[in-house]
């Protein structure tokens, strides 16, 4: 007989025990987030309240670095990225393997991912090991490795000095692999510091765009009526205000450093995400599984958080991957115009500095320009591949 294992019978199931075990506690992701954000906020308050404006944050443990506002935001976005971007990949290894096998087929995208990962790691840890770029006037215009420059532009050559045709040339050396600028700053160091700025732009704007865009999109879709109308009309206006001109106007009127700048980038460009989330939320609201969870008494928040947001996540990620290069370009453009934050060694700043000496020291412009170009290219390839791997159907939608 088939009923020789009576212990498995439905009637004998201890439902109370199951209910106790599935008690909804905090998810691992939330625990991780809280576990890191709470100390971060504590540290921030300590820096804000207990220390003077120019005191080093970690002065107590002997580290003379004063954490800036941008660093706090960067740390927050990194924590959230880890908890809700990387941890889920670890938690669902089967899906991760599937995505990876899809993603792997696009070889330029894999190369791009490696390139961006290198930039990320070097940008994050490089500044800890490299001293900030220092002006050293005697070391001006050192050429990069493998190139040479006429000695008339150089005061003191770090590499060998060769003579050909009666003129003396300074050879590039490993002391300054990418050469130096007009005031002798090492371009390699500047580029590494610029990587961090680039990654800050990428992560912080992404955080803002995803948060605001998702919040507005889901609110508009779920509340509906007047709220929906007003929010979506606002999105229309934001879309027709040319972003770059808006930055120019705001910078002209208020001035401001890189932190304001990055926050503005984020705050002015979530409209596409909001639109997408809204239309997706409206479409998904008709699905059977949403109706099923509504019938079982799930709250609107639960439905948005558990069903709508995860379902739109892949398209949001793709959308943002294609937005980030635009921000990097904006920063470079503003820096080039001399309207950027001159206190920050971003790639755009270095590039702009090389403009006047282009004729004999083109590397000052070319090296950071090449990094900007490659980073933008990598993000584009990555976005293209993510579009294919995460959501084959969205590929058709996005091109309309």
């Amino acid at each position, binding site marked *: 007989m088939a009923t020789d294992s009576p212990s498995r019978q439905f009637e004998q199931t201890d439902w109370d025990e199951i209910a106790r075990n599935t008690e909804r506690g905090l998810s691992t992701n939330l625990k991780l987030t809280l576990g890191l954000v709470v100390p971060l906020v504590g540290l921030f308050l300590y820096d804000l309240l207990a220390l003077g404006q120019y005191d080093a944050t970690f002065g107590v443990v002997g580290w003379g670095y004063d954490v800036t506002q941008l660093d706090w935001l960067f740390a927050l976005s990194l924590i959230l990225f880890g908890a809700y971007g990387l941890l889920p990949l670890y938690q669902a290894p089967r899906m991760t393997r599937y995505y990876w096998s899809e993603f792997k087929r696009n070889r330029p995208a894999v190369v791009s991912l490696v390139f961006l990962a290198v930039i990320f790691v070097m940008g994050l840890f490089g500044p800890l090991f490299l001293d900030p770029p220092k002006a050293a006037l005697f070391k001006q215009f050192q050429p990069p490795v493998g190139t040479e420059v006429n000695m008339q532009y150089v005061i003191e050559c770090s590499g060998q000095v060769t003579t050909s045709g009666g003129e003396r040339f300074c050879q590039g050396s490993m002391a300054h692999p990418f050469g130096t600028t007009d005031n002798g700053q090492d371009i390699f160091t500047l580029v590494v510091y610029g990587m961090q700025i680039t990654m800050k732009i990428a992560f912080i704007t992404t955080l803002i765009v995803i948060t605001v865009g998702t919040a507005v999109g889901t609110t508009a879709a779920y509340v509906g009526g007047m709220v929906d109308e007003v929010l979506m009309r606002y999105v*229309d*206006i934001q*879309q*027709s*205000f*040319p972003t*770059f*001109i808006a930055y*120019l*106007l*705001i910078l*002209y*009127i*208020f001035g401001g450093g890189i932190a304001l700048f990055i926050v503005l980038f984020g705050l002015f460009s979530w409209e596409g995400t909001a639109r997408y989330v809204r239309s997706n939320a409206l479409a998904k609201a008709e699905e059977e599984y949403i109706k099923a969870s509504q019938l079982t008494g799930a709250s609107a928040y639960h439905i948005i958080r558990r069903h709508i947001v995860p379902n739109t996540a892949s398209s949001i990620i793709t959308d943002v991957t294609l937005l980030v*290069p635009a921000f990097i*370009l*904006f920063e*470079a*453009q503003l820096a*080039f*115009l*001399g*309207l950027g934050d001159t206190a920050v060694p971003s790639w755009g700043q270095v*590039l702009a500095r090389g*403009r006047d000496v*282009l*004729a004999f020291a*083109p590397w000052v*412009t*070319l090296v950071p*320009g090449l990094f*900007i*170009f490659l980073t*933008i*290219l990598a993000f*584009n*390839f990555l976005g293209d591949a993510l579009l294919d791997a995460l959501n084959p159907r969205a590929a*058709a939608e996005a*091109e*309309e």
Partner: protein
Amino acid sequence: MGLRWYIARRVGWAVVVTFIIVSITWALLTAAPNPEVRQAATQAALEGGNPNTAAERVRELRGLNAPLYQRYIDYVVNVYTLDWGWSRMRSQPVTQAMVQSLYYTAQYSIPWTLITVVLAPAVGLYSAANQYSWKDHLATGFSFFGYAIPNFFFGIILLLIFGVYLGWIPITYNSDVPVFSLANARQLAVPIFVLVTGSIGGTVRVARNESSEFMSADFVKTATAKGVSTARIYTRHILRPTMVPLSTTMVAQLLALFIGSSLLVEIVFSIPGLGRLTYRAITAQDTNLVLGSTLFFTFIATIGNLLQDIVYTVLDPRIDFSDR
């Protein structure tokens, strides 16, 4: 009803949008300290006068002491009657300064737009016809390159190569040469090339992906079966439906580039157009001129968005207007 009603509503909304943008710029300007007042105060202090009275005098002169609503109404009326104030930097009315610069901007933006509009669908279609061949890969590589390289950086490199090292093109722009002359073509060739590579990339991608969908559509098979020539299939059966989504991306792309990149390209190639005017106004703290060019660019963007929507609906007869 239908289409006409939709267009009327869309135009009405565009007017509302410009109105809101005008109001936002007013609010931003009012909230910020006026550089002119600050300058007057600094100057008075330097000359040993009383900075407060000097500031007060400028405020009086510029009507900054009037009640807020009065200033707002004046501002809006002035904006819509094209009375955009006096440019200190150029010593002429703002509108006049802008029309003069527009003359130079048009000289490169009209050929650029024409080239993009003609070339992008053609390359995309060609790419789709030869999908996954080396020609397709070449076109794809080229469009990614053009899309990713910052226009101003590309401009600098080309200027370095062709202007400084090879000496084929003049390094500085000469505004005295006639519009239709070889010299003008020579000095504008590189800026136009840079802008075209920037704008063509995205459009070629869209054209390629869209038309490759129609390559194997039933109506194309039918046309082939009844003996329609290949050229006619491409132009009439594939290009026609491709143009619908393509036109919208094209308008959006050209607009975004016109506003963002033309500014930088003009500065790199020292073309005395609108972008450079805006930039110089910002560095010279000429508020009226900054505002004028901001408004100009936003109006262009609003009109562009409007056109984009209307073109989309006019081109695609399948769209239903009853509920829009």
